[in-house]
């Protein structure tokens, strides 16, 4: 057996990675390093200069950079080693990593435990098959956000936004505030895919036209975008011929979904849950490889940074148990399965050792509804939308009352 160089390596310094690092150090894990490929810590947060972060965690409304800075400060105060400009190129099945950076060159580490916190990327035009030309002026919403907030450049003067994800709606407001005209936000579904809060505060409050059940049929312009043809879709999302309309614009922003970045995860031989987009984990975010944890957007795309930080803390708890060879599991594993009305469940399995927080998404928007956790409990919610994560806590006690033969809990929902 090779000796381990690190007790804990954390890949990514976004909110999940930083929370994991802070918690791990507080629990006494000393030999830990956070690797970050960017030149600054914080992940995607430094470019999210709008407010709305930290309501649960800090009980105040912070901007993205402020939220990140709290964690960065905590990490610094605890003397945590965050290596910036450091890209992890490879993750072995044996929990070894290969890292490269400008100032330190290439190095490899064997790690006793690892937390994967690489975040997600935005779906690009190529995977959407939007017909048309290939001019400049097509950006993902996050790219445009980075351009404005970090580089100080305006992506364009007249924009159409395809997709009503949160970053897209936030960018609609941002562009408007910067003097650009947002001519429309198009959403193929009959409802926005981001948070209601963003729909109201970013679109309605600024009188930005929201065209539900619409998509882009064609992009025009040779050098720079000159306009888009938009088209209505039917209930099955098929374009309705004859409903085409040209909107002139110089910019098209895409806010059509986020994809967990699991290239390293796959390299380590882990299977990906196609409904969540991330690896399978238990309630302490441990993947099917002992000692390898995943949290944050690499696991499933979250709409609340506070939850992401909590996941990081759970992963740190798990890593702590593994490093100290504390009994991790006993009493039999329970599989958590999405059933009627539910599209995804994270974690996908749990032990009976502690309270378990479930993250669920519903398939379709609903009014007042109930979530059933097997037959052991149910919770009522005033409403639910696919764009919003639902969190349900299963108390440890309820799990321990299950018989040894109860190895599956089905999650389902019903409108009431």
């Amino acid at each position: 057996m090779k000796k381990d160089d690190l007790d804990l390596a954390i890949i990514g310094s976004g909110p999940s990675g930083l929370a994991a690092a802070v918690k791990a150090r507080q629990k006494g894990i000393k030999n830990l390093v956070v690797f970050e490929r960017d030149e600054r810590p914080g992940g995607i947060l430094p470019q999210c200069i709008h407010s709305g972060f930290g309501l649960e965690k800090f009980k105040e409304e912070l901007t993205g950079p402020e939220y990140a800075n709290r964690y960065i400060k905590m990490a610094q105060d605890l003397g945590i080693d965050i290596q910036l400009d450091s890209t992890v190129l490879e993750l072995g099945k044996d929990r070894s990593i290969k890292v490269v950076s400008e100032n330190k060159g290439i190095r490899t580490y064997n790690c006793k435990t690892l937390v994967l916190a690489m975040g997600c990327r935005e779906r690009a035009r190529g995977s959407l098959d939007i017909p048309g030309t290939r001019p400049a002026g097509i950006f993902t919403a996050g790219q445009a956000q980075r351009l404005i907030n970090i580089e100080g450049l305006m992506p364009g003067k007249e924009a159409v936004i395809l997709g009503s994800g949160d970053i897209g709606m936030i960018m609609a407001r941002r562009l408007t505030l910067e003097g650009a005209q947002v001519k429309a936000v198009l959403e193929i579904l009959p409802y926005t895919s981001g948070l209601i809060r963003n729909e109201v505060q970013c679109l309605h409050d600024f009188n930005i036209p929201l065209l539900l059940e619409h998509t882009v049929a064609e992009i025009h312009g040779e050098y720079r975008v000159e306009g888009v043809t938009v088209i209505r879709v039917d209930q099955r999302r098929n374009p309705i011929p004859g409903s085409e309309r040209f909107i002139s614009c110089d910019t098209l922003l895409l806010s059509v979904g986020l994809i967990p970045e699991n290239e390293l995860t796959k390299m380590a031989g882990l299977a990906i849950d196609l409904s969540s987009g991330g690896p399978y984990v238990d309630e302490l975010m441990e993947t099917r490889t002992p000692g390898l944890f995943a949290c944050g957007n690499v696991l499933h795309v979250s709409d609340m940074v506070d939850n992401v930080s909590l996941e990081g803390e759970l992963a740190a708890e798990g890593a702590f148990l593994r490093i100290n060879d504390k009994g991790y599991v006993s009493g039999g594993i329970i599989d958590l399965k999405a059933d009627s009305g539910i599209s995804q469940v994270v974690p996908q399995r749990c032990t009976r050792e502690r309270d378990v927080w479930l993250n669920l998404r519903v398939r379709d928007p609903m009014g007042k509804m109930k979530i059933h956790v097997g037959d052991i409990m149910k919770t009522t919610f005033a409403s639910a939308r696919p764009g919003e994560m639902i969190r349900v806590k299963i108390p440890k006690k309820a799990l321990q009352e299950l018989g040894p033969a109860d190895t599956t809990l089905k999650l389902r929902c019903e409108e009431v």
Partner: protein
Amino acid sequence: MNNEIPVQEGYSGEYDIIVIGAGIIGSMIARELSRFQIRGALIDKEPFPGFGVTKSGMAQIHSTDFCPPGTLKGKLCLDAPAKFKRLAGLLDVTYREVDELWLALESSQIANIEAAKERGEGHGATGYEIIGAERIRELEPHVTEKAVSALYIRGLGVIHPTEWSFALTENAAQNGIETYFNTSVLNIQKAENRQYVIQTSRGAFKTKSIVNAAGLFADEIAWMVQDHHIRLTLRKGSVAILDKSVSHLVRHMIFGTFSETHSQNVAPTAHGNLILGIHYTKTDNKGDTSVDREGIEKIMKLARELVPALSKRDIITSFAGIMAGNTMTGNGDFYIAPSEHAPDLIHVIAGAPGLTAAPGIAELVVKMLSDAGIELEEKKAFQEKRKGWPLFSAALLDKQKEMIASNPKFGHIVCRCEQVTEGEVTEAIHRGAGTLDAVKHVTRAGMGRCQGGFCGSIVLGLLSRGLGIPPQEVTKKGGRSFIAEGAMGE
């Protein structure tokens, strides 16, 4: 590479030979001409070589099995893989050896592959084999169970055509050929002393001879010299690229059936993705490189008939190229001939597989120029080698360490999907890649699954710094294709 020629009254000098068009064919010709003691220039309207049809093909170096008997293209494609392989060593560019499997999906199709074998061998190619179902499965386990037999040709290859065009123009320039990009040919006049005057968007050139390698625009160039018999026929070919995570599914260039509307083909690319093609549609617009949903569906359907495990979910991008045929030859053959009015102006009208034939075409054109009385004397100091820069992602660990030791910027990953470093991007910019698309094509930064979502703004910054211009002046592909519409607060 972006030599500014003064826009002027007179001429920027007198040339022996000017090549119009720096696609794979024009670049190959320019490099071949650079062996000789001539004053030559290569002109292209795009900001970078290989940005015409060349950038949008399947990029395969074929054998002669697609060339009808007795055709010029059959002659020019013979031994193409060996020529490319040799050049790859000299030019320090990627050539990936890939074998061909042309499948018969039912017994009635066996006649097609037998005919292809006969056709290919008729041109002199060797090493063809017809294999059975079991052998197919051994070679390519994910191929459809319907495959009953296949034509198996070993030792073909795939390249990245823009990388090659760039390397060829660099090597030509090293040997004294002047290169002018962002330079459109607007008109050609006959002057005194049997000379031509080429009017361009950036000044005039006087030359003794011209090679028209303008690809899709070769007809328009021909019309400038009254060769009105040159007519092209166009069709659009659409293809799709898949994420590298499914690359293990296909190791050969696999073909199925061919028709007016498709060439059924799934193959690896030089850089390890899979490419699916080709769906054809009629077009009369040379700039029409859009791909519609129906096109994607068709491509996917064709591909899944060959390899059922492929999925639309894995498409990272799609694009189209215009394929040029001509009305002069009738049987789809190339038309490479001097002007009807003068032997010292050569038209090169090559459709598919023009990439494969490029080295053969270059040799032929040199011979035609020599026959036309242009003096071609070999240079003693011809430098046949060109040096690229090391690819970080492809290098072994020791080499990677050495790269970083020589320049720490090789330790800074700019494009995470393709693992391209700042060292590579800076080198490419320094050597003439002056747009986002040019950088993408020669370094692969932005070619991966996120399609530049993350690295786009970093490359923008490096371009701005490298070119010494403000970021809002950086373009995607020249002209007015500015990435940003001004700085904030303007």
